[in-house]
């Protein structure tokens, strides 16, 4: 025994002060209270190494049971692209209307894969980590953010495959390839914001994560991943606002920016006007909005 035994304190009601006053007198703070937004950002910054380490750890643990191991990080997106090529390029012949259809398709598939899986995994980020939320203190935004970082790391590996495929299909490196960097960063900020917002919704309503695959599939088919929004809509007599809405679609914007950067035959006239402004706008709206929306419920995660 190192601590001298103390007698039990009298019950609180016997003392004159209320618990609140007693707490204030000794500088005690409310346990589990939500920090202010600047304080929250600072806490998150202090934990940045945890966020990245957790992302990297999960990335490495993903295929650790498979015999080919990390090769699957590269093989999975390539197989995905092959399936889409078989269905849309060979069977449905969507390639007739688009020049350089294979580079067009795989760029779309890879970028969409990042956007779609960020949002899907973000929806589950808090709910599937309830054990962690209930055991340790850290800004909960670390969970959806590390999910997006993990997927971004995966995207970078995939981009390596994309470069090889582009070269194989006759696309030559050009200065415009550098535009990939801002395009991907903006897409990442957009995805992080969406993942944060969906993480809050998914933690309150676990059923939402069951619906997400359907919502995301609808979004994918309307984002021009396998077909060109511009050339399809030009020929079909759709109202102008439909075309505009399809072109303002953030997923389509980021995918088309990547195509513009990487594919020679994908010219600027295929992009909606003010495309970079739209890309920045979506990133800011989703990024800031998602973060604030997530922070607003910080003290409630873990209620289950």
């Amino acid at each position, binding site marked *: *025994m*190192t*601590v*001298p*035994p*103390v*007698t*039990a*304190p*009298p*019950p*609180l009601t016997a*003392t004159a002060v209320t*618990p*609140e006053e*007693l*707490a204030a007198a*000794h*500088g*005690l*703070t*409310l*346990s*589990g*209270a939500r920090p202010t937004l600047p304080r929250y950002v600072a806490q998150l910054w*202090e*934990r940045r*190494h*945890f966020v990245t*380490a*957790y992302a990297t*750890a*999960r990335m*490495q*643990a993903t295929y*650790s*049971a498979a015999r080919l191991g990390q090769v699957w990080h590269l093989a999975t997106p390539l197989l995905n692209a092959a399936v889409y090529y078989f269905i849309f390029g060979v069977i449905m012949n969507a390639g007739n209307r688009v020049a350089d259809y294979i580079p067009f398709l795989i760029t779309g598939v890879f970028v969409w894969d990042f956007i779609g899986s960020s949002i899907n995994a973000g929806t589950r980020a808090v709910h599937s*980590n309830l*054990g*962690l*939320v*209930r*055991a*340790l*203190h*850290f800004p909960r935004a670390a969970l959806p953010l590390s999910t997006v970082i993990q997927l971004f790391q995966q995207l970078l590996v995939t981009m390596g495959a994309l470069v090889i495929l582009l070269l194989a299909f006759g696309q030559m490196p050009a200065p415009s390839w550098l535009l990939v960097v801002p395009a991907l960063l903006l897409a990442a900020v957009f995805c992080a914001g969406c993942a944060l917002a969906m993480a809050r919704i998914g933690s309150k*309503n*676990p*059923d*939402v994560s*069951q*619906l997400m695959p359907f919502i995301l599939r609808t979004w994918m088919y309307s984002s021009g991943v396998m077909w060109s929004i511009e050339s399809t809509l030009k020929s079909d007599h759709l109202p102008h606002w439909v075309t505009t809405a399809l072109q303002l679609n953030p997923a389509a914007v980021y995918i088309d920016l990547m195509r513009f950067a990487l594919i020679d035959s994908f010219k600027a006239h295929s992009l909606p006007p003010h495309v970079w402004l739209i890309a920045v706008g979506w990133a800011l709206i989703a990024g800031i909005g998602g973060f604030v929306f997530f922070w607003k419920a910080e*003290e*409630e995660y*873990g*209620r*289950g």
Partner: protein
Amino acid sequence: MADTANRIPTVIADDVHVIYKVYGTGTRKGGATAALSRIISRKPAPGVREVHAVKGVSFTAYKGEAIGLIGSNGSGKSTLLKAIAGLQPVARGRVYSQGQPSLLGVNAALMNDLTGERNVVLGGLAMGMTKQQIHERYQDIVDFSGINEKGDFISLPMRTYSSGMGARLRFSIAAAKDHDVLMIDEALATGDAAFQRRSQDRIEELRESAGTVFLVSHGIGTVRETCDRAIWLESGVLRMDGPADEVCDAYEAFSRTG
């Protein structure tokens, strides 16, 4: 006894209620359309049941105290600890605390597919240690766990460890950090005899550096030995709060008859 004014409170629980929502208890199968309409109408699903795990518990813990939480299984001990730590949101009432109370345990952050080495770093970061601190304590953690006594196991994935080895490494990581208010949830009974002795010593050290220690244990002996005060919970209600020996006696008398 009367000079409570001179003692420094570290944790004040004021009428704390914790309510769990448990999904999937209903017998009716929920179809996709039913789920959708529930989401839209924001009604609780028919299969949701609320469990009122902690019902209006109030107490004040002071600096230097070691408090044992006792009670039968499912009486809300662990839930109360999580509520004090601010990890389990309270439904009603308030918890005030000095600094950040932490639960001793890091299991949830560790990954079985990664090596012990990586898990030490990951666990440390999850607990809020800096890279520098982890680097300084890394060797201590590994030595303390005794993982490398039978060869270089620290560089193997944790899924290859025996359950005892895994538990030892988890405890070693969790105990590497000092805390203001420390909560231990039946972590004492892991590993072999030699490791248990080491972990007892380490908990003593942690107790000395921590302001207040909470210990949840089914072993009344452990509570008598290590705590000076005990709180007895029964079905979420605070039944008794006082010197460890008195409360343990009463609890034992209750268990025999009950």
